[in-house]
């Protein structure tokens, strides 16, 4: 009744191709972004920053990246943790070598470096498919983490083998290091995420995005109608790794502040991001956000209720969370392979017809 598309006519192809074709959707999205930029910074505190907002933003970025590769181009990767490590170490090396360089540029450059590494590890995808490729990406995961552990140049020969984020400012405001105020780190990450989400949307709706999806849906037919598999797959690896690298740089520079590769970028992180896009929705930009938010908030919520409310021991809750996440993955793959996004879409369809479903 209230949520509908009738009367919302499109008179040009340009209007028909916009991201949110429904007027109401557009309004909701604009309001949400305005709220995130204009209201949240005034309400934020340390707890919300560290346990909710920053993790959601960082992992949304990583999920966006993996969704481009897996959801759009159909190449499953289990190397996300390793590529995040590349982004993190790239940002560390860049910002310690050039302290004057703007942090924003540092992070984008880290993404660029990760993209190059991603292309390198994406090369096998030209010959191998499916879970063979998934296993091949494990090579990057374990090799990269080992590399950052063993080669002292990467951690500037620090005694602990750790890397620590130095304090950096943007426009005079501290955004990294222990003294950064919550609103500044939050706004910095939010800006990056919003910009790159729009870019992801643009890439996936145009020529390149269609070439990715064509490879995903039927690679042989795609090649025969003129999509070069090399360019399509490698561009997906590059763009995906760029996002994952940026996520890794944000994770280390802004969120963690200090990192040690095996702990921060292990294989469990690769699975976490994969789970996010399965639950959120494969091949959906919004789904990346929903999946990341869901999987970050679920443990926080359960911990708050069971540990905080009922006084259960934390390890017990941790086991429960493992079971719930595993169960949810199976549930979604069986019932709704397009994830929460699809459930949301179905709800919208129903809303559109409400209250006269026939």
């Amino acid at each position, binding site marked *: 009744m209230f949520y509908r598309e009738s009367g919302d006519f499109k008179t040009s192809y340009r209007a028909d191709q916009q991201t949110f074709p429904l007027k109401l959707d557009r309004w909701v999205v604009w309001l949400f972004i305005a709220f995130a930029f204009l209201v949240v910074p005034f309400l934020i505190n340390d707890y919300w920053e560290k346990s909710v907002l920053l993790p959601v933003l960082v992992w949304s970025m990583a999920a966006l990246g993996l969704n481009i590769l897996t959801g759009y181009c159909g190449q499953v990767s289990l190397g996300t943790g390793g590529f995040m490590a590349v982004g993190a170490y790239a940002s560390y090396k860049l910002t310690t070598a050039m302290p004057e360089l703007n942090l924003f540029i540092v992070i984008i450059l880290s993404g660029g470096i990760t993209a190059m590494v991603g292309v390198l590890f994406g090369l096998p995808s030209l010959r191998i498919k499916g879970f063979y490729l998934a296993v091949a990406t494990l090579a990057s995961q374990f090799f990269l983490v080992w590399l950052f552990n063993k080669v002292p140049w990467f951690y500037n020969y620090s005694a602990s083998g750790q890397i620590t984020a130095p304090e950096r400012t943007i426009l005079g405001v501290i955004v990294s290091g222990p003294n950064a105020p919550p609103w500044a780190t939050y706004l910095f990450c939010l800006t990056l995420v919003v910009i790159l989400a729009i*870019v992801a949307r643009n890439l996936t709706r145009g020529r390149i995005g269609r070439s990715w999806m064509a490879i995903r849906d039927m690679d042989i037919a795609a090649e025969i*109608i003129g999509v*070069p598999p090399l360019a399509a797959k490698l561009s997906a690896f590059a763009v995906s790794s760029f996002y994952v690298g940026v996520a890794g740089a944000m994770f280390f520079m802004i969120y963690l502040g200090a990192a040690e590769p095996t702990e921060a970028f292990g294989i469990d992180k690769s699975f976490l991001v994969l789970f996010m896009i399965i639950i959120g929705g494969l091949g959906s930009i919004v789904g990346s956000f929903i999946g990341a938010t869901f999987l970050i908030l679920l443990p926080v919520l359960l911990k708050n209720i069971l540990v905080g409310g009922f006084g259960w021991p934390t390890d017990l809750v941790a086991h429960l969370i493992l079971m719930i996440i595993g169960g949810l993955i199976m549930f979604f793959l069986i019932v709704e392979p397009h994830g929460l996004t699809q459930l949301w879409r179905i709800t919208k369809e129903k809303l559109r017809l409400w209250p006269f479903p026939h």
Partner: protein
Amino acid sequence: MDAQRTFGEPILEVKNISLAFGGVKALTDISFDILKGEVRAIIGPNGAGKSSMLNVINGFYHPQQGEIWFDGQKRQNLKPFQIAKQGIARTFQNIALFKGMSTLDNLMTGRYIHMHSNIFSQALWWGKAEREELQHRQRVEEIIDFLEIQSIRKTPVGRLPYGLQKRVELGRALAAESKLLLLDEPMAGMNLEEKEDMCRFILDANDQFDTTIALIEHDMGVVMDLSDRVVVLDYGRKLADGSPDEVRNNQAVVDAYLGVSHA
């Protein structure tokens, strides 16, 4: 169809093609040509090597012997996507649409070879990328009108019924605006009405878009009506080549189809 259609020089010439998989010979010493503007049929019993022939033409299989001349030039050993770029489009025997994408996106993907905006312009959706997108959308909409599939424009093709999927696949091939269009059993599994529609689309495409068409089909009525010339394959060898009437009256062809006792 008018009896006297005249055609230009060959768009494609196949010369002495032989193809084998391991010890199995799929094609042996096949030669024929396709003239600009004609509808050329390739027929033959099951396993005669028709689909293999198409796969050779668009570069998916590489023959051990023989040459292919396209548009007056001898073709080098190219990858399928490079051949598509030269101007050969095709449809598939078992529908090979991109199931997760809408009809519109499938057709737009068909235009991939004509689009050139770079990744940065696309990332910003600004300037060339957007212009190009709108311009090609226009072309695709013309094809959508031509095939009368306006109503399923935004439907994911996986949800469409078989007949419509076949039509969308034809649309995707037409969207490439190729010089040569290969159709692999465009009417397989269709009912009479759908077949008639498809015939009309093929003839109109040949007429309106000036597309040269090579098709494989099992329905002899359709083949005889549609095509200007027919080449007949059997066990990977060429059996006959000529107008529908000539082929129909060729004893070797009749034997191949009906079987003959080698007593």
